[in-house]
């Protein structure tokens, strides 16, 4: 049953019309056109892992394959785990991770198809809050270890001001490079540096499964 006033009045039509108009106005907005604008010169973005040149196709593909890998990847090596360490299956780009009990150290392995030492060391220095160093200075800091027949560049980076540190090693398995990275506090890393180094030295590769 409808009130007569409402049926004969103009008000409902006004409501209906204004609601429709409101809906149309809202959906009609937002036409898009080709535009040109100016922005200040952008600093070159710090491309992760130094990629970007056309010659880096393989690196792009390898990194992507690692990133999107769904199934755990066989690590392809054996090693002696120091006491208190445990192995965690990899996920995403990580082939494998390790936890060291009673610490917050994050230690993991990733594989990339590039292995430039100075740019990676400077990337790690940036992560702990240190300014970039010259390639000469880096060369002095980096220790070259032999793991079976492969070269391993080992470095410890500490920033006492921020309290952060990184112990890292790049294993040259060209065309692949393995990156072992341990991140944590300076205090904890210094305590466990010897273990980490011993672990890295104990690596034995299983064929070419890398």
């Amino acid at each position, binding site marked *: 049953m*409808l*009130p007569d006033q*409402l*049926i004969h009045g103009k*008000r*409902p*039509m006004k*409501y*209906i019309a204004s*609601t*429709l108009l409101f*809906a149309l106005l*809202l*959906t009609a*907005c937002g036409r*898009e*056109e*080709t*535009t*040109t*604008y*100016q*922005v*200040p*010169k*952008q600093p070159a*973005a*710090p*491309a*992760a*892992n130094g*990629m*970007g040149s*056309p010659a*880096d*196709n*393989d*690196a*792009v*593909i390898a*990194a*992507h394959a690692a*990133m*999107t890998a769904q199934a755990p990847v066989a690590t392809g090596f054996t090693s002696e785990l120091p006491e208190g360490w*445990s192995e*965690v299956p990899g*996920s*995403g*780009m*990580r082939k494998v*991770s390790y*936890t060291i009990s009673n610490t*917050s150290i*994050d230690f993991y392995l*990733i594989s990339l198809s590039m292995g430039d030492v100075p740019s990676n060391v400077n*990337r790690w220095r*940036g*992560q702990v809050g240190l300014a970039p160093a010259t390639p000469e200075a880096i060369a002095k800091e980096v220790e070259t270890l032999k793991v079976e027949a492969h070269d391993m560049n080992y470095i410890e980076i500490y920033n006492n001001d921020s309290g952060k540190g990184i112990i890292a090693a790049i294993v040259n398995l060209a065309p692949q490079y393995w990156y072992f*990275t341990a*991140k944590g506090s300076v205090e904890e890393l210094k305590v466990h540096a010897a273990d980490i180094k011993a672990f890295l030295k104990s690596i034995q590769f299983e064929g070419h499964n890398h």
Partner: protein
Amino acid sequence: MINKIVAFFLSLKLTVALLSLSMVLVFAGTLAQVDKGIWTVMDQYFRCFIAIIELPVFFPRTWDIPNLRIPFPGGFLLGTLLTINLISVHAASFRIQTTGVRRMAGIALLLLGVLVTCGVMFGWGTAPVAATESDAFWRVFLRLGRGTLAAVVFYIACLLLYRKRAGMVLLHAGILFLLVGEFVTAVRAVEATMTIQEGETVNFIDHSRQWELAFTDTSHPDYESVTVIPHRKLKDGALIQSQDLPFDIKVNRYMVNSTQPRPLQGMPEGPRSRYPQYEGYGSRLYVAEQPESSGATGARNAPAVDVELLDRETGDSLGRYILSLWFYPNFVNRSWDMPTNLKVAGKNYSTYFRYRREYLRSPSGSPYSVKLLDFVHEKYEGTQTPKDFASQIHLINEGDDVDRELRIWMNNPLRYARQTFYQSGFLPGDGGTVLQVVRNDTWMIPYLSCMIVFVGMAAQFIQSFSRYLRRDS
């Protein structure tokens, strides 16, 4: 005639019919996500006035069902009709029952209620930089409290105007407010992301559901000139001209989704022989069209565009290029950066097919930026399961004199300049953060309308209960 239209909109049958149609639409839209992405389904079924339902969505995909495309009332049409239905019934059933001073006081309070609602919606009286120090529970509680304040003002106004029917009027108005709010959110809300490496300062966001072809002229020593073509203009066969570019762009193919780049030389002979002769990355990498990702998988689409650049004067081809979202660093979490570099008419262009970029500005028009100072990613001990992500950021807006260090972490977003910045993801090796950025001016409406409905229902209940008690005694 008018009588018939009004009677139509006042009918309860219309409400039932519209709700039934909504159920069918939701059902079809849900099934359609087996084959299509969630946002395609949103546009095709819900965010339109006329939806097109494809018959095979209701059947197993192995059955050979003819692909009948059935026009159906879309989400906007159903919502608009429901709103008109509700307003009409509201206007017909609830009439102002007072006159004189009482009526004037009621209207004044109603306006005050609108003012309070606007204040709550637009955050009047709250800090311009809503930092994230407070506890999440109390923050939600406070928002509901603000909603209650508006609801109580409205209730008093309704009491003055509608007397005993105040509760009913208020609760219907609350539902209407919720409907309108959802509609505005659907049309106007913006979702974007912001990717920042540690130590980097970023002053733009990437719109998640819009893309653009961007030609950046890097020739000038002081600034870059960027010409952007929205993805909606990149239609197959389109010829795009801009007076700011020395070439025209012919669109050969717009791809809703494309495969990840693979080395061309590693591809089998068949696909390789059919692959166009591209310049740039396409000459070495294989990027092909692939079906849109299913909404059921949650995978992201990587649109791409196959274009040919033509000399403005002679019409000669300057090369055919494949430009994919795969080449844009923020799509691949900065794993790589692959701009297509061109040199045309003495100018250098860096080209991306990328997410639509919006430079950050506060409501005063002043540009601002966000620097990532530190990213923390804690995991549950012995597992890779994330326990906490947090971004320590530096918010800088020189024009508005804002210079603050803030922390954004899970469930504790930053609200600033009509945007909300949520912790969403991180870059490989924890080297940076991915923030989800949402601009939704009507985000407070659910809080407000819930409390308006609650106050209306409570008032109605108390009124009926006391009437029952009086009758009983």
